[in-house]
């Protein structure tokens, strides 16, 4: 196997254990003497807790302990918010792990039962008697901001968690006043439920004699969990081991460290035995973080020939009842700074109001802020095209940032790394047969059929990110990554990384990086991750950063190995280092490739150290801590083709074509898989998914029966294409691909449906575009006419 392995679609090394049922997820682990915990959660969205009687539960069969909020005083602090958004008037309400006097959303924990079996915990939960005083609730962010709205936190005026603004470029008022045309829209980015297929779980095992605790946790970022658990539960970080074993998807919902995690730790610490907690799916819907939940009022100013001169927006972002770990950065930094999209927009202004509501906390969900930004911009561009009677592709072209390969500043303050947005769109239109689609649409309209074609051109901020920037934007952590590459005497390699993949395939792609850099077979590389005890510090897998940052750390560590191996090889071949060459796992004197030392030869010599060059340490191992100089900015262009049945309002997605550019692809099969999955999640938002609360704050979509997750039927085969534009600052040129599909696809599908409905006079439908909503919009448009 050779360097050519980099870039080939080899089978995943993760899969044998996953397809045979031998992988170990958190809930699969059983420890001797282990007890089970279950949480009693508030059935009301907003209620004063007058009294909790746990006496009957405490005496129920198998019950070992019942705890309420007061029992945790001095033991575990509130669940922290770790993104302290600056210059925003950020107010952080205490998120007590067990609610003390007030429950603020359906799912807020009010008590925990620990028992010998899981069934006994559930039986005992039914015996806890809580006396609630109902309070008025508010669930919509804009209503939460209104005068007279029910107030969630006594110390926080107007339910406002923050007010953040971004202003860039020229005078926005002037831009709008002098514009030839202005288009406006109000968009509801509905609440979504992430639905990682593995429910969340925690297993804590505390040893009183040593003061050490091991926590198995369904997390995307075990080192952050370790850091926060040490702060909240008072266990020193050196005595704390966090293991993310097999993790069954996250999509952002496993970034946060949750009250239930801290409570499980508390229970184990208190009782001195292992305690496991596993959420049910219904619990997941109530208490594992949700995504999106924006109300956006947006407007775009342009010249009569379609050149954008300004973009202005006000967003009300629902944050839920408390601020989850990373929540404040999502609708602001990851959203507002991306409002220029792929376009040259000379003036941008956005106000974002983060509002507390009596709902499940809202956090990152695949794309996290960027889908909401892309949707705004892509919707406005389509509205502009309609207003000017121009083709949506043409309006985009008139506003694209021209091709650049080493940095482009946008007015929101970011410097994009590289891009050829017109190139991506041109390729897309060719692959999709855009002109034929328009012709087909025209023909269909003559027959009274409603075909629509929707475009979405996007750029995303990924590879989070330079730690100095993290500090400046209030993120309470670093954003670098680390890697250790260790050659064993036999030439086999262990790679230890700080990042924590959970389905994205880095055990394979990172082995391919090593193969590419050092010429070993990927089969000889085992990638170890997810255990704080045997991996170096890392900041987690989210924001399409694992390959973009961790992959860079790994490549640089591999190059350190190569440099050292070169010195050893020169010594063994009795040559000067300057005269040496490396190719495909072999080191040789220039011009004499027939007499070479392989990387395996060097690994053996370095490990036995019988004959090392003067001053060179034994061992063949390297560590890199890589802090990126900038973010990476993957981009692309997507197209959806739909047909709408005007009689029923039902939408059929007929084609979906994607062109994505994530730089060089380490494993194109894995890239394609990421694109598929991401696109379908975005399609889900456009057509089917919504987390719905009633006005009292009851979650109406409380089970998988009520929430429309995309299924295998109802989807076309996605046509995946790519262009390759390396990032100028990444050692391998790679960007990121985990979120791209989701960022692009909601707008593409939405634009296609509105395009289909144009002859019927419909220009806006609230998502998801269910048959009922589409049908009602058609009826309303007919009445207006």
């Amino acid at each position, binding site marked *: 196997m050779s360097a050519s392995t980099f870039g080939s679609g080899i089978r995943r090394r993760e*899969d044998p254990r996953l397809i045979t049922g031998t992988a170990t997820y958190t*809930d699969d682990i059983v420890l001797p003497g282990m007890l089970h915990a279950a949480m009693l959660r508030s059935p009301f969205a907003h209620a004063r807790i007058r009294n909790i009687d746990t006496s009957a539960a405490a005496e129920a069969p198998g019950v070992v302990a019942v705890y309420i909020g007061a029992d945790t005083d001095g033991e575990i602090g509130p669940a922290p918010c770790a993104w302290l958004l600056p210059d925003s008037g950020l107010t952080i309400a205490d998120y007590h792990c067990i609610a003390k006097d007030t429950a603020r959303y359906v799912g807020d924990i009010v008590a925990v039962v620990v028992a010998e079996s899981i069934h006994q915990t559930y039986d005992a939960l039914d015996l806890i008697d809580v006396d609630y005083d109902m309070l008025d609730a508010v669930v919509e962010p804009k209503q939460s901001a209104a005068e007279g709205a029910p107030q969630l936190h006594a110390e926080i005026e107007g339910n406002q968690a923050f007010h953040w603004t971004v202003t860039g470029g020229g005078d926005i008022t002037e831009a709008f006043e002098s514009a030839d045309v202005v288009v406006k829209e109000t968009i509801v980015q509905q609440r979504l439920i992430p639905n990682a*297929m593995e429910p969340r779980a925690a297993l804590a095992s505390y040893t009183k004699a040593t003061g050490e605790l091991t926590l198995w946790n369904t997390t995307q970022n075990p080192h952050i969990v370790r850091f926060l658990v040490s702060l909240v539960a008072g266990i020193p970080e050196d005595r704390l081991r966090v293991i993310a074993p097999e993790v069954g998807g996250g999509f952002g919902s496993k970034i946060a460290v949750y009250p239930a995690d801290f409570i499980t730790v508390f229970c184990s610490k208190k009782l001195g035995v292992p305690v496991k907690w596993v959420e049910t799916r219904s619990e997941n819907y109530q208490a594992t973080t949700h995504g999106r939940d924006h109300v956006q009022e947006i407007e775009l100013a342009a010249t009569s020939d379609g050149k954008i001169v300004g973009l202005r927006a006000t967003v009300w972002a629902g944050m839920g009842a408390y601020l989850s770990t990373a929540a404040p950065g999502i609708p602001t930094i990851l959203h507002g700074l991306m409002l220029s999209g792929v376009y040259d927009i000379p003036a941008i202004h956005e106000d974002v109001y983060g509002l507390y509501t009596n709902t499940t906390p809202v956090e990152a969900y695949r794309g996290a802020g960027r889908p909401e930004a892309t949707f705004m911009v892509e919707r406005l561009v389509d509205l502009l095209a309609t207003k000017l009677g121009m083709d949506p592709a043409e309006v985009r072209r008139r506003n694209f940032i021209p091709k650049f390969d080493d940095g482009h500043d946008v007015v929101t303050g970011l410097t994009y790394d590289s891009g050829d947005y017109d190139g991506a769109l041109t390729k897309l239109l060719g692959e999709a047969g855009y002109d034929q689609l328009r012709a087909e649409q025209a023909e269909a309209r003559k027959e009274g059929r409603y075909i629509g074609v929707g475009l979405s051109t996007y750029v995303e901020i990924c590879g989070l990110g330079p730690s100095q920037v993290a500090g400046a934007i209030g993120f309470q952590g670093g954003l670098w990554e680390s890697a250790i590459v260790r050659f064993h005497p036999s030439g086999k390699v262990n790679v230890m990384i700080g990042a924590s993949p959970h389905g994205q395939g880095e055990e394979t792609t990172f082995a391919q990086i090593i193969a590419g850099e050092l010429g070993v077979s990927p089969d000889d590389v085992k990638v170890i991750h997810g255990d704080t005890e045997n991996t170096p510090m890392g900041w987690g897998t989210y924001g399409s950063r694992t390959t973009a940052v961790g992959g860079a750390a790994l490549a640089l560590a591999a190059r350190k190995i190569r440099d050292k191996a070169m010195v050893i090889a020169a010594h063994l071949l009795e040559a000067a280092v300057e005269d040496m060459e490396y190719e495909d796992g072999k080191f040789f004197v220039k011009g004499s490739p027939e007499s070479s030392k392989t990387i395996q030869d060097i690994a053996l010599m370095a490990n036995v150290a019988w004959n090392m060059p003067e001053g060179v340490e034994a061992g063949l191992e390297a560590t890199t801590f890589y802090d990126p100089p900038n973010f990476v900015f993957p981009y692309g262009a997507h197209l959806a083709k739909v047909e709408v049945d005007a009689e029923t309002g039902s939408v059929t997605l007929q084609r979906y074509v994607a062109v994505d550019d994530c730089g060089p692809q380490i494993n194109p099969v894995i890239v394609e898989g990421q694109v598929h999955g991401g696109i379908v999640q975005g399609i889900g938002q456009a057509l089917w998914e919504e987390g719905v609360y009633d006005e009292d704050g009851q979650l109406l979509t409380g089970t998988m*029966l009520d929430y429309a997750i995309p299924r295998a039927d109802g989807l076309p085969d*996605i046509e995946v294409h790519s262009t390759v534009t390396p990032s100028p600052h990444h050692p391998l040129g790679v960007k990121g691909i985990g979120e791209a599909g989701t960022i692009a696809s909601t707008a593409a599908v939405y634009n296609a449906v509105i395009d289909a409905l144009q002859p019927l006079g419909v220009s806006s439908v609230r998502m998801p575009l269910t048959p009922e909503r589409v049908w009602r919009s058609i009826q309303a448009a007919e009445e207006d006419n």
Partner: protein
Amino acid sequence: MRVPVSITINGRQYSRDVEPRLLLVHLIRDVLGLTGTKVGCDTSQCGSCTVLIDGVAAKSCTCLAVQADGLSVTTIEGLAGDDGLHPLQESFWNKHGLQCGYCTPGMIMASHELLRCNPDPSDDEIRHGLEGNFCRCTGYQNIVRAVRDAAGSATGGAQ
């Protein structure tokens, strides 16, 4: 109260006294320690717990352990036998039909049922046949490819 259950799983017989309310999936996972079968929901939507009961696929969360008394169950651990991987497992691997892997055991068992009933399904039939199993990672496309690939290998190359 406990009642005796005798059940054959992956060819091995197990006898246990269980609570009547115990679901088959919990017998399999929690009592017998066969954790390849997953639980993804509490309303029988997701299909992660799909197993074969007397050769027919069933969601093991919809069945009480006592109802399976005397029956023969195959879980993901028992699909392949001793000689390597089942063709479906090979195809899921070859076609990148999984990412996080959590839905995979149930998806493979449901695909087994699909091919048992329809050895040479069209893509559309595969998509409809798997609509009772949720996957959040793959967007299903490579799962469809995997099932088609497995059908091809089972029927001598038919696509």
